[in-house]
C-alpha cells in the first residue's frame, strides 16, 4: 500500500491544523491549562488516586487474611486490628474440613474445560460479527445478546432438565457445557469488540497474499486480539471459579463438588465459623490472583504498531 502515510481510519473531525511548514505538536489549549502545568499536577493527582485505590482494595484483602488468622472469638472482639495470636492452623484446618484438595482439582478441571470451549467458540463468533458479512447478522447478534439479560435463577431447573436428558447430570462435563453456554453471550461480544479494533486492511491484505478466510482469522486476526483473549480468560475464569448456584443445582456427588460448594461447610443454620471460612476463601482466591497476573501480561500495547506501514 503506497498511500499508507495517512491510513484510511484517520480520525475525522476538526482539530487545529498544523502551522504550515512545521511538524511540531501544538499544545491543545482548549483546556485552558498549559501543558506544563497540567503535567506537573497530573502526577501527584495520579498517585493520590492510586493511594485511595490501594486503601480501598488492599486493606480488605489484608483484613480477610487477618480474619483467617484470628481465633473465632477474636474475630468478633478484635474486628479491625492485627491478630493477637496468629492461628496459622486455621488454614490447614479449613483445608481438611472442606476437603479442598479434591475440590481444587474439580474446579481446575471445570474452569479449564470451560475456557477450552469458550476461547475458540467466542473468538470465532466474535470474528464473524466483526469481519464477515452475512444477512441477518444483526438479528443473530441481538439474539445472542439475550443471554446477558437472562435474570439469575430462572433457568436453574430447566437447565437441570436439559442436562438430565443429555445424560450429563451430576457430571463435570455437563457443568462445563452449561458454564460455556452461559459465557457465550458475553464472550462473543467481547471478542467482537476486540476484533473490531483490528483494521480491516490487515485481514484483506492477508487474503490478498493467499490466505484462506480461516487462515486470515487464525494467523492474522487472532494473534492481534490477544488482549481480548486474555480479558476473556480472566473474566470467565474468575466468574466460573467463584460460581456457586449452578454448581449446587447440577452437582450432587461429593467427589465432584467444586470449591464454592465446599465453602458451605463453614456456615451452619445460624452461625458461621468465620476464621476458617476466611482461611478457605484466601486459599480459594489465591489462584485467581495468579491467573490474573499471568493473563494480564498479554496486555501489550502496540501489537498492531507498524502493521500498516510497508
Amino acid at each position, binding site marked *: 500500500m503506497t498511500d499508507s502515510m495517512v491510513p484510511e481510519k484517520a480520525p475525522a473531525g476538526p482539530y487545529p491544523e498544523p502551522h504550515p511548514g512545521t511538524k511540531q505538536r501544538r499544545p491543545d489549549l482548549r483546556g485552558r491549562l498549559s501543558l506544563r502545568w497540567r503535567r506537573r499536577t497530573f502526577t501527584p493527582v495520579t498517585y493520590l488516586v492510586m493511594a485511595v485505590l490501594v486503601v480501598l482494595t488492599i486493606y480488605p484483602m489484608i483484613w480477610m487474611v487477618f480474619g483467617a488468622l484470628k481465633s*473465632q472469638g477474636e474475630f468478633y472482639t478484635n474486628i479491625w486490628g492485627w491478630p493477637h495470636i496468629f492461628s496459622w492452623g486455621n488454614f490447614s484446618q479449613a483445608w481438611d474440613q472442606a476437603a479442598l484438595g479434591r475440590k481444587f482439582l474439580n474446579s481446575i478441571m471445570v474452569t479449564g474445560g470451560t475456557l477450552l470451549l469458550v476461547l475458540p467458540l467466542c473468538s470465532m463468533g466474535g470474528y464473524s460479527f466483526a469481519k464477515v458479512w452475512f*444477512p441477518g447478522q444483526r438479528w443473530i447478534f441481538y439474539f445472542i445478546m439475550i443471554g446477558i439479560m437472562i435474570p439469575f435463577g430462572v433457568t436453574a431447573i430447566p437447565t437441570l432438565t436439559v442436562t438430565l436428558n443429555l445424560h450429563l447430570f451430576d457430571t463435570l462435563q455437563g457443568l462445563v457445557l452449561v458454564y460455556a453456554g452461559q459465557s457465550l453471550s458475553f464472550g462473543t461480544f467481547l471478542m467482537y469488540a476486540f476484533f473490531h479494533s483490528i483494521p480491516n486492511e490487515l485481514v484483506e491484505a492477508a487474503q490478498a497474499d493467499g490466505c484462506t478466510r480461516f487462515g486470515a482469522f487464525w494467523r492474522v486476526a487472532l494473534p492481534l486480539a490477544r488482549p481480548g483473549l486474555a480479558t476473556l480468560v480472566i473474566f470467565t475464569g474468575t466468574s466460573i471459579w467463584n460460581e456457586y448456584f449452578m454448581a449446587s443445582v447440577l452437582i450432587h456427588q*461429593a467427589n465432584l463438588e467444586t470449591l464454592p*460448594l465446599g465453602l*458451605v461447610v463453614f456456615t*451452619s*443454620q445460624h452461625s458461621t465459623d*468465620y476464621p476458617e471460612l476466611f482461611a478457605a476463601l484466601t486459599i480459594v482466591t489465591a489462584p485467581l490472583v495468579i491467573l490474573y497476573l499471568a493473563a494480564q501480561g498479554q496486555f501489550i500495547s502496540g501489537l498492531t504498531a507498524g502493521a500498516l506501514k510497508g
Partner: protein
Amino acid sequence: MKITFRSVWLSCLLLGATIVMVASSGVAISTAAQRTPLVHSSPACQLNLLGETRSSPAETAAWNKVFSDFKSRFHCSVVATWQGQWSGIPQLLNEARIAHQTVDIVADGTYNYSLASAGDLMDLTKLVAPYKSRFPAATLQPFTVDGRLWAVPDEPETFSMFFYNVTLFKKLDLTVPRTFAQLEHDAQVIKSRTNVLPIVEGGSDAWEWPMWYMATFAQTSGNKSVPDTIAFLEGKQQFTSAASVQALEDIAQFSKDGLLTENALGTDENGAVAAFVKGLAAMMFDGGWDLPTIEAGQPKFSIGVFPFPLVVSKAGVFVQPNGSPSEGLAIPSSIPRADLPMAAQFLEFVSSPLEANKIQSTLDPEVPTITGVKPVSDPLSATLREYLPKTNSWLDWIWPADVVTSVENAIEGVLFSHQSAMSAAKSVQNELQTLRQEQNYNYDFWATWSKAQRSAVEPPFIPKVEIQK
C-alpha cells in the same frame, strides 16, 4: 435483511433445530396428581439420606458411627449426602426427584410446612407412635401440622431469649427483669450511668423481628398463640384482632421508650453478637444458637439469659419462649415402598437415647430433644431446660413466607416508621388476603386434598420397628 434463498434456508434450519430439540427433550409437564415410587435399583440394602452440611467434622464422624452401628445391627448401609445449606434442602429434594435419585430420609426444618403441604413428606404419625414418648411434647409440636406428625427431631432445641451481661448488672445493682417495667428501669439505669447500649438487636436480618411478635403475642393471646395463628391463617380470625394489635403495640413501646434505636436496623446478627461480646451492649435478644459463638468470643464478663419479659399483666398468662429443634428427620413420600421398613427402623434407631447422644453431644446440647440424651454441663443449661415444657413452636414455621415478610415489615414499621399498630396489622391481613386470592393459599391442605393425594403420603402399611433401649 435481504430475502435471499440463503436467508430463508438458514432461518428454516435454525427453526427446525429448535423444534427438534424441544420435542426430543421429552420431559412432559405433568398435570397428574400421581406420585409413582421410584425404582430401587441396588439389590443390597441401602438407605439414602439427604441433609445440609454438618456443622463440624466431629458431627460428621458421629453420624458415620451411627451409620455403622445401624449397619452392624440391621445389615443395611446408610449413605448420606450432606450438601448445601438448610434453605436449599427443598430444592435438592425436588432436584433428586427430577433426576430419579432415591432419597429415603431427608432433613427437615423451617420448611416443614412447605414440604408437607406440597405432598413431599410421608405422614409419620403412626410410624412414630410406638416410641413417641421419647420426645418432649414441645419438640414435636413444630413438626406437627393438622394433628399429623411429619418429622422427628434429631438436633437440640433452640429458642429465643435475652442474653445479658451479668457482670454489668451486678455492678449496677440491677435485677434480672421479669416484667417490661423492670426491663425499662434496668435500661434507663444502664443508659444514664454507662456508655453501653441497653439492647442490641440484629435488625438488619429481617427474619429476627418476628421473634418479637411471637414473644408478645404469646402473652397477649393468653398463651394461645399457635391455635390463634392457625385460626388466622384459616380465615377464622383476623390479624387485626385485639390481642394481635396489642402485641404489636407492646413491641412499639420498645422504641418509644428508647430501648431500641434505629441502630438495630443497621446491625446484622453477626454485628449484634460482636457488639454484645465486646461489651458494647448490655442485652441482646436472639436465639440459643448464638450461645456457642458468644462463648467462643470469650467475653470479659459472665453471660446470663432470661426469657422475654412479661408485657401483659393478666392473671394466668405466663412467659412463653418460642423455639424448635434445629433439625428433624422426615421420610419423603417418594420413597420406594420397599425401603420403608428400613427407613422407619432407622428413624427409631437414630432417636434412641444411645445413638442420639452420639450425635447431639457434638452439638453443645443445652436442651436435648430426646429424653435420655445428656445435656451439656453448662450453668445456663439447667436454666434453659426449664423453658422447654412451655415452649411454643416458632410462628414462622407456620406462617407462609409472604406473611412472614409482611410481619417483618409490620414490626419494622411500628418500631421505626411511626406506623400505627392497627395499620401495620392491616397490611399483614391484606397480605394474607392477596395470598388466598392469587395463590389459592389454604392452610388446611389436608382438607382440600383428594383421596389419591392423601394416600400418596400415608404409609401403605405400618412396619414393625424394633425399639432400642
